């Protein structure tokens, strides 16, 4: 009798668990519950004779059935939370570091010697042909090394930057590492995105000015900064699928309200440096000058004739509004998205009053050459 009771209990509890999950799944699939937790649920895979026969339909449907499970993101958070308690720190190529800081993982990534050599050759060529200044921005995993999870892989940016300085010479090299290290206790990087903040760009601006040969720097007052949002959640958090309280994003008062036009890829022209519509996008850092463009032509209020050509990534977007008053036109070319030949583009812009600057995150820059390899 006792055994029978035990068996019934086992079968009952297993059936209840299984059926509860099955009912949750079915009710949602049947449209009786509308909460997968996503704004745009994945569409049902398309059924065709070919996709049926080659098995693609079933493969897609299996993936769909997991993705569309009732309250999917909440289950994911539960799983992630448990894994974090158990000591896991790397998810979807993102490292969860100390002080809730997220880093792009370099696990298994090895920047080859060829890539490093090619990148150095490229910089030297820019210096020789265009008298270009080099301002490579150390990323958070260098300056905030102490926040990285124990034994996480990292690229020795200090060593690389020393090589850069050696190759391009001190007069063409804007040293940022020491400056940023001096301010490492401040919020100089976004915790949840791979970019520096307006605060770091502010420090970067003065470091650049010292090497730029300009007579005076523009005055930016940190006390007058404008809070854009205090719920900035960068792309790392979205990739991992975690909750984050968000962080502050601000801009400098002096960069706002300027008579500036930005023309993207010769197609769209928009006024002003900032794009509020990006705050809800996958990468809210697009707030600074937009995202995913090859070339942006920025025309400022300045009456000067001189132009600046910047080879840069989203880090450059953050700093350009601070540099803009020194130039009438700034060309920003993002090699990650530019489809044409970068060298050709640079040659086209060459003129007496044109200056050149490489303004990019170290890792992003070196990885450009990794792809080539």
């Amino acid at each position: 009798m006792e055994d029978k009771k035990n068996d019934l209990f086992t079968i009952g509890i297993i059936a209840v668990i299984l059926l509860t999950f099955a009912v949750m799944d079915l009710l949602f699939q049947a449209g009786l519950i509308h909460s997968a937790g996503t704004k745009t649920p994945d569409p049902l895979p398309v059924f065709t004779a070919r996709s049926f026969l080659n098995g693609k339909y079933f493969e897609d449907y299996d993936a769909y059935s997991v993705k569309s499970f009732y309250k999917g993101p909440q289950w994911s958070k539960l799983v992630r939370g448990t894994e974090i308690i158990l000591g896991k720190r790397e998810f979807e190529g993102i490292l969860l570091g100390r002080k809730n800081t997220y880093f792009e993982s370099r696990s298994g990534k090895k920047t080859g010697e060829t890539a490093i050599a090619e990148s150095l050759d490229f910089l030297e060529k820019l210096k020789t042909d265009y008298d270009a200044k080099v301002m490579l921005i150390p990323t958070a995993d260098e300056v905030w090394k102490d926040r990285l999870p124990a034994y996480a892989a990292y690229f020795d940016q200090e060593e690389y930057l020393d090589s850069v300085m050696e190759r391009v010479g001190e007069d063409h090299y804007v040293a940022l590492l020491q400056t940023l290290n001096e301010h490492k206790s401040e919020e100089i990087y976004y915790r949840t995105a791979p970019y520096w903040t307006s605060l770091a760009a502010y420090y970067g601006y003065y470091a650049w000015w010292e090497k730029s040969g300009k007579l005076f720097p523009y005055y930016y007052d940190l006390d007058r900064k404008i809070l854009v949002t205090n719920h900035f959640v960068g792309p790392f958090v979205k990739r991992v699928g975690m909750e984050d309280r968000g962080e502050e994003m601000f801009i400098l008062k002096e960069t706002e309200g300027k008579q500036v036009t930005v023309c993207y890829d010769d197609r769209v022209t928009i006024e002003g440096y900032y794009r509020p519509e990006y705050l809800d996008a996958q990468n809210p850092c697009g707030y600074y000058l937009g995202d995913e463009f090859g070339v942006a032509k920025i025309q400022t209020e300045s009456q000067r004739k001189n132009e600046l050509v910047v080879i840069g990534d989203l880090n450059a977007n953050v700093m350009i509004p601070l540099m803009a008053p020194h130039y009438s036109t700034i060309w920003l070319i993002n090699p990650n998205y530019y489809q044409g030949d970068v060298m050709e583009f640079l040659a086209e812009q060459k003129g007496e009053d044109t200056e050149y600057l490489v303004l990019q995150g170290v890792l992003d820059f070196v990885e450009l050459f990794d792809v080539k390899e």
Partner: protein
Amino acid sequence: MEFGSVVFILRFLPAFFILYYLAPGRTKNVVLLLGSLCFYAWGEPICLLPMVLSACSDFIHALLIEKYRGKGTAKILLSSALFFDMCLLFFFGYADFFIETANGLFGTRLIQIGFPLPVGITVYTLQTTSYVIDVYRGKIPAGRNLLEYATYVTMFPQLPIGPIVRYRDLSGALKNRKMNLHQISGGAKRICVGLAKKILIADAAGKLWSEIQLTAPGEMSIALAWLGILAFAFQIYFTFSGYSDVAIGLGACMGFSFPENFDHPYAARSVTDFLSRWNMALTGWMKEYFYQAVAPEKSGAIRNTIAFVLTWGLIGLWYGPDWTFVLCGFWMALFYLAERLFLGKVLRFLPSILRWIYAMLVVAIGWVFFALEDVADVMIYLRSAFGMGTGAILDRRFLFLTLEYFPLLVFGAFFSLPVVSRLLSKLENGRNGMSIAATRFLEKVYPAVCLLLALTYLVGRGW
């Protein structure tokens, strides 16, 4: 369909069992057959073709063999049945592998067929082959009920990776089976444990192995290379034994009794011991239908050895069309033979722990063959594992991954060794009421916990 998918666990399984338990008497076979066809067609409907052809061919051949029993025609019919089965297996499963080998060896440019290896083809081919051989040997009468036979061939629980079940062991249950609560509850527990093994441990171990593979074999420290082997060892064991548990559990819930397939192989103290605990149904099948056919009793030592090596080569090939699988089979066979000839006697004098270390070392090296597709990579990997790569003992990557996957390594070791069963039996044998109550409670609760964790992980990881 995969056992570890939402479609199988939350849709197919509940729907199937509701229909199965509602179906009266012999119609259960109809439900099982249709369910199996749906299970098999989900993913690769085109792969139903070889299964149907194999089932029909062996059913007809068996009937004819019985009709001409004792005559030369029966032998021809047996050969014809086996030839047809092997052709199907070759064409649908291994043709591209042999074409690629021929192209590599002879510089030919034969075009590959590009047909995906149908899931379960190696399982049902061996099952149908054993059926027709058993009929020829007179061990069983040819089945006259196509429904029962088709149900046997297509039965979904053991299709993915076994255990391989002989018709003679199931024919009684196919005709008439009785189910009781104890059997169903035991089956349900096995399903939960099997799913947890696959989803919670095997998949995580697979992820660790993938991460280790991001480092080139020649650039690994010794510790990282061994961590990789450990991860792969856990992945392969918990996948196979987890799927076998699910298959055995499903069978029990339907009133069948499938043979055990894994018996804590990582607790083995010799290679012979390991092989007797690993995929037991496959080893048993190969011994009965291949080895004994090639080297019958009283065969000479040379013939026995050749048959033995061939058997293990084929066992390797059963896992997939890759030469490294065959080499893995040969590697195990080498030590098995050595143990039979002389090593076994030496091992007897060693302490248990040293015997275990020896066995696991041989198995670990075998797994490197199994895990990598290229023999050159295997050699590079082994060089790293034995300190001839970078020469570094430890590296950051090893320390990082060990911390990342520490719980997996602990749980993997805990559940791959017979620790749980020993603990439970110790508790059960305890004389006080407390330990008996604790055992009963654990036995009741742990399957539910396993299922809950597996389902949570399954629906959570998709995001």
